């Protein structure tokens, strides 16, 4: 709420908001420093998790653009990750293009595919569009799985190891961190531009924004495609990171994972996307660690872990939607004493 409010209000900012702006700048700098310094004191495992978090942050920010800021429910986000992963992997394998180009290629491909599946938005809205994205999920999965000559079918594509800047794993970590940082910052600034504001306007009242001269259909398509493009970039990084691309990485459950990250972090908040992705990526690790500590060594927990994960996923979605619609960001703001009224009508 306050993020949009400060963006939209042109009135002189009260001192509280100015302080908040300063806090925000400082936290971005601290974040950059923390990201840059991590390889110097992090273990291999930390670095691995950091890469995963970075990739998930990119994808979550993308989904938040579509779902949180523009109010278009997408339940097929992981399929767009898949498009990015396959396209970039194929570019690499067949054209031997550099990593930067592969990432861009994955993002562009996902953007285009996202636009195609966003087309139903021309005629329909709300839950109907959610079904269109569900269709995207199933149809793209089908293509990944069945177009064996290109995608390798169920076995997928294997990728060689990459060495960026001659730094080994650290090098790839910096790539992920860099892309995550730039895309996140870009998304944050997007909502200070005309295009970004029109996303929010369309979410609030689409017919009113049409009257105000916003091309609602184009705005929805761009918001949809942009969210998918973020997913595509994340997918391209995921392909390099895991060195394998197969259909089972891009199922409906993965889409629900990102939806949960958006809800838990905070809808229509970039900081929320970061927190949500962080929390949801680490949660299974904490869960595993907690269970292993509780059960002692040697216990077979594999059967427990995945159902418990699903229960916690679901409970987090339900709990945050009911009790803290602003997500972790809302909790954080309240902890720092920024009072805000939660108004169901202004919610999206």
């Amino acid at each position, binding site marked *: 709420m306050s993020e949009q409010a400060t963006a939209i209000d042109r009135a002189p900012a009260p001192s509280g908001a100015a302080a908040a702006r300063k806090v925000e700048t400082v936290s971005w700098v601290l974040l950059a420093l923390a990201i840059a310094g991590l390889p110097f004191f992090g273990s291999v495992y930390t670095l691995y998790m950091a890469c995963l978090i970075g990739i998930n942050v990119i994808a979550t920010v993308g989904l938040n653009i579509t*779902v949180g800021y523009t*109010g278009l*429910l997408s*339940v097929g986000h992981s399929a767009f990750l898949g498009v990015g992963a396959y396209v970039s992997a194929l570019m690499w394998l067949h054209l031997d293009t550099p990593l930067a180009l592969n990432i861009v290629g994955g993002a562009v491909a996902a953007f285009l595919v996202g636009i195609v599946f966003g*087309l*139903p938005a021309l*005629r*329909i*809205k*709300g*839950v*109907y569009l*959610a*079904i*269109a994205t*569900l*269709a995207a999920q*199933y*149809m793209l999965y*089908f293509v990944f*799985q*069945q177009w064996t000559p290109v995608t390798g079918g169920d076995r997928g594509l294997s990728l060689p190891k990459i060495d960026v800047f001659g730094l080994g794993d650290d090098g790839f970590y910096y790539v992920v961190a860099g892309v995550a940082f730039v895309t996140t910052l870009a998304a944050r600034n997007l909502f200070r531009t005309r295009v970004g504001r029109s996303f929010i306007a369309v979410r609030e009242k*689409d*017919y009113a924004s*049409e009257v105000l001269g916003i091309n*609602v*259909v184009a705005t929805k398509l761009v918001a949809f495609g942009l969210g998918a493009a973020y997913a595509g970039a994340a997918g391209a990084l995921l392909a390099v990171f895991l060195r394998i691309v197969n259909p089972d990485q891009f199922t*409906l459950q993965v889409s*629900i994972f990102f*939806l*949960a990250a958006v*809800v838990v972090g905070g809808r229509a908040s970039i900081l929320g996307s970061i927190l949500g992705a962080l929390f949801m990526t680490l949660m299974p690790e904490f869960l595993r660690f907690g269970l292993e500590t509780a059960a002692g060594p040697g216990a077979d927990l594999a*059967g*427990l872990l*995945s*159902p*418990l*994960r*699903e*229960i*916690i*996923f*679901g*409970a*987090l*979605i*339900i709990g945050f*939607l*009911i009790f803290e*619609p602003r997500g972790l960001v809302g909790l954080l703001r309240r902890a720092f004493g920024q009072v805000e009224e939660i108004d*169901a009508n202004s*919610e*999206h």
Partner: protein
Amino acid sequence: MSLFLEFSLVGLASGGIYVLAALSFVIVFKATNVFNFATGEMMMLGAYLFFFFDRQLGMGWAGGLVLALVAAALVAMLTERIVLRPLVGRPHIVLVMVTFGVASVFRGIAGLIWGPNNQQLTELLPRTPLFLGDVLIPGKLAWGFVAAGVVAALFIAYYRFSRAGTAIRATSTDQVTAESLGINIGFVFLLSWGLAGVLAATSGILAGSVNGVTPQLGLVALNVLAVVMLGGLTSVGGVVIGGLVIGWLETIVGAYLGAAWQSFIPYLVVLLVMFVRPTGLFGENRVQRI
């Protein structure tokens, strides 16, 4: 040709199970405007409850069936009361997202209690195949279709002619007016979720008695949404036809193109329908466009 006829009949028969699940979905959507993505999980849970009462507690299939349906209704009503009631008045997108949470919790609970493997339910339906001329229909499918038909007919009759059914229909037409005319909206919400629970559980038990049940049954059952979109979100008659069409289509596609195409074709149909006629074949024109 007779092979095609056979596949068609088998397909229509398997569509009967879809019809029940789709009815479960439609009644919730009509009465409460909630797009329930957890319908498939309610099917799955119903099948497991039957397994639990019948096999694990050893109550026999008749007692198990009754208790499973009652328990499924209770679970659905609790879901309404605990999860959806606090969200009344919140935007659509929130109501949809929360059903994903419910689905995930149900899946997790089933996985925790019954494990990931396929559990065989008591075979409620006779195996002996039916012959129509020289066309053979597997007995379970045929009788499953009959059972689904009976339940669907009972439900539709209740929905059309009973006082409670009228209240649900009034609420779905205009909540505010219904409330001001003395209809207890809270009761209608609870009732429609309870009915939805029973319908979904019946559908799940029928599906489970053919193929067994796993925690993933609910995800498979998302095809039901294709049915609903095809028939129109708000039309009870429409989903009956939609269910039969999707069941038929799946079987024909599976038989001639291979099983992998089965989960793909229904969604292709849905996308096409939405491009051409967003309200579905029989839906009310509730879709807003811009």
